[in-house]
């Protein structure tokens, strides 16, 4: 064994020392050494994968046995997954067809004595589910107790009338089981179990003794009034549409009484309480053309100028930037991903790949272009300094770490650049006094830089356990709100909003309730309410004094996981703008924002309703 082989074994064994590591690097200074390490790593990787694949195949036939120790349960490799999946599909297609013929599925022509419900309408794809099998459902089809109803596709719907005067309306991609509440199938009321998706359950007449009971992943809701309607969804949980509901939380057993218009809110600690569901439709300000790109990353941005001009941007080249007042005509401009007004509202910054264009906000004439030095390093976010003299730019790209830059607008020169992130920079915020620049990244950190002190190294906050999607300073600059969530919005992993205390340098509060990534965060103008938009399709309102979610609304049409709401509050705090993957930009009344000084909700100036 030569010295290079020996050093490579030590590296592989993770027992290499600093001196040996330095020695290894000297061996790799020449091409022959590098050829050796490439061959060695390639060979080792192949070896590890081959052994895993052999084990996966051997395990199925019982051939692979390690006689020295129980085998560590490492995840199987992609190849073995493909193999297993392919074998499974083959088996299913061969065996499943035979089994299918033997499953007794209900048919409208021969209603079962145990008929429990009947399909009223079917739109798109709907199925009756029995055990592991599915049969396409159609109008008039009978449902037996214990069978499930499934819809597939975001636009599919099914309405099913239950024997005991309940009506179920299933939204897209939903799975519901209708069970008997007791052993007696003929007498008992339905127990509706929502496994996934969105469901409206309503009583069509007085239920008297056999009251509606709906089991959700969060807990069990039982009607307390004769007439009741309940909306249950993954995004918003349990909302009472009509009547009175007794709710028992599954994890804690805590009981709640919910009235019409209330929903079950949860704290990160697992506590539950009743909050208010804000209903109503926002006014559509604009819509963007379909791009086919609405998948897993932020695609829309919104910003207000101090004069009330609204700018929004979509990911699509066709859509670009739209600009206008909330009542007036809209104008278009090319751009993507992000858009920002200068604090005086006279300048508009837009991004296009690696470059930033500075426009006159009145004429939309391009007055300056700040060219990115690396073509592949796309602009992801922008922030103006409060004096309007500097523009902070957050970048990310396929190669290299996330970068933050500070450009002087008077000269068009890059003043400073930082590389504190190992992944894309997704968000930027500058404190109201212009002292601090915060950047959030997919690398699950926030970096804080003191702009007035060039020597001071960036402070890296690693409190976020998930990628950071949005940042916002409170109006007094004492708190930084950090919105986090999984990188893939389709994951059912709850995002959190963290409130970072700039003075104590600690997380003061963690706000949880959204069921997916939080994609946007803004403070109300009085700093007492935090507003969060999420991939779970909801916008939620948080009372910062109480540290609790006090309300939410659901304003866009995309399915959970295919939503990423961007938020902006008008400078006077009178209107909230949301933009999302349903390609709509909507304007909402801000009557839902709490004003603690008045201990009431701010009233909407009716004359200005758009």
């Amino acid at each position: 064994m030569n010295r290079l082989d020996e050093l490579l074994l030590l590296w592989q064994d993770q027992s290499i020392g600093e001196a040996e590591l330095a020695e290894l690097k000297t061996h790799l200074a020449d091409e022959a050494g590098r050829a050796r390490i490439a061959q060695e790593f390639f060979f080792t990787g192949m070896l590890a994968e081959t052994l895993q694949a052999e084990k996966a195949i051997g395990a199925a036939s019982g051939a692979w046995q390690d006689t020295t120790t129980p085998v560590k349960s490492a995840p199987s490799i992609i190849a073995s997954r493909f193999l297993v999946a392919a074998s499974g599909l083959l088996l299913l297609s061969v065996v499943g067809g035979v089994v299918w013929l033997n499953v007794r599925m209900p048919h409208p022509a021969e209603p079962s004595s145990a008929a429990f419900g009947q399909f009223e309408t079917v739109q798109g794809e709907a199925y009756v589910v029995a055990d592991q099998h599915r049969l396409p459902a159609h109008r008039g089809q009978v449902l037996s107790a214990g069978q499930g109803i499934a819809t597939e596709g975001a636009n599919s719907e099914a309405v099913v009338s239950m024997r005991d005067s309940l009506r179920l309306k299933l939204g897209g991609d939903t799975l519901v089981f209708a069970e008997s509440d007791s052993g007696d199938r003929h007498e008992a009321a339905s127990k509706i179990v929502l496994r996934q998706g969105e469901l409206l359950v309503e009583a069509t007449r007085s239920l008297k003794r056999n009251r509606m009971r709906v089991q959700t992943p969060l807990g069990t809701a039982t009607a307390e009034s004769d007439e009741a309607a309940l909306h249950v969804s993954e995004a918003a949980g349990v909302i009472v549409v009509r009547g009175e509901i007794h709710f028992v939380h599954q994890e804690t057993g805590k009981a709640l009484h919910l009235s019409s218009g209330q929903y079950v809110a949860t704290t990160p600690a697992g506590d539950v309480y009743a909050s208010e569901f804000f209903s109503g439709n926002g006014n559509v300000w604009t819509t963007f053309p379909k791009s086919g790109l609405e998948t897993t990353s932020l695609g829309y941005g919104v910003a207000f100028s101090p004069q009330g001009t609204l700018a929004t941007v979509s990911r699509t080249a066709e859509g670009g930037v739209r600009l206008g007042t909330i009542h007036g005509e809209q104008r278009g401009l090319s751009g993507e991903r992000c858009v920002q007004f200068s604090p005086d509202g006279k300048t508009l910054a837009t991004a296009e790949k690696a470059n930033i264009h500075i426009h006159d906000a009145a004429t939309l004439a391009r007055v300056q272009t700040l060219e990115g030095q690396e073509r592949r390093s796309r602009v992801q976010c922008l922030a103006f300094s409060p004096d309007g003299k500097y523009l902070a730019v957050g970048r990310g790209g396929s190669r290299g770490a996330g970068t933050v830059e500070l450009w002087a607008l008077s000269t068009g020169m890059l003043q400073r650049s930082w590389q504190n992130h190992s992944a894309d920079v997704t968000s930027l915020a500058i404190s109201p006094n212009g002292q601090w620049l915060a950047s959030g990244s997919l690398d699950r950190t926030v970096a804080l830089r003191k702009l007035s002190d060039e020597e001071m190294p960036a402070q890296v906050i690693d409190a976020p356990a998930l990628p950071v999607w949005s940042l916002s300073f409170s109006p007094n600059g004492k708190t930084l709100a950090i919105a986090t969530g999984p990188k893939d919005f389709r994951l059912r992993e709850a995002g959190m909003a963290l409130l970072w205390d700039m003075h104590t340098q600690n997380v003061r509060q963690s706000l949880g309730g959204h069921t997916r990534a939080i994609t946007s965060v803004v403070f109300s103008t009085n700093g007492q309410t935090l507003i969060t938009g999420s991939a779970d399709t909801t916008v939620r309102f948080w009372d910062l004094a109480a540290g609790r979610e006090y309300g939410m609304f659901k304003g866009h049409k995309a399915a959970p996981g295919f939503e990423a709401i961007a938020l902006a509050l008008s400078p006077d705090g009178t209107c909230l703008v949301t933009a999302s993957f349903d390609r709509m930009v909507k304007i909402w009344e801000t009557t839902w924002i709490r004003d603690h000084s008045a201990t009431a909700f701010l009233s909407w100036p009716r004359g200005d309703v758009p």
Partner: protein
Amino acid sequence: MSERIKTLSARFVAERHYLMGFIYGMVRDLAAAEDILQEVWVRLAEAAERGESILEPGRWCRGVAKNLILHHWREKRTAKVIADSELLDIVEKAFEENEEPWLERRQALMKCIDALPGKSKQLLRLKYDQGLSFADMAKRLRRSKDGLKMALHRVRQALVACVEKRLTSLEPET
């Protein structure tokens, strides 16, 4: 799935062993290496969806993998994982300089592993499947660390020789 993503997907699947060697060589943890490999694929698909121009997918994937490896190391700081970004750069360069005939090599290797004696296979499994350190292997097998290092080296040399022999025998005669 668009034609472009299909083409990239096919190429990724076909060439992934080479990328896996790069990732696994650096992180030395099969589960983590697989996670990184899959994340690279996700990013490649996303970039393709966005319509980004990817002229050299192999190089592009190594670049993404490199960042993910750095991130992995950063997350594992507390686990005392030995990490060195300079070495990472050197290895990336090494992979750029040395393109291997990956597919034939892998097929040959599978056959060569099959032909190994039981004890040699056991060594390979302990090291590369279960990821044991030489110290742990020494305890389990009641052998010295140096002896095990040498034994593993010999098994690997035998495999390299076997692979080369198989590849040579496959080459068309001129």
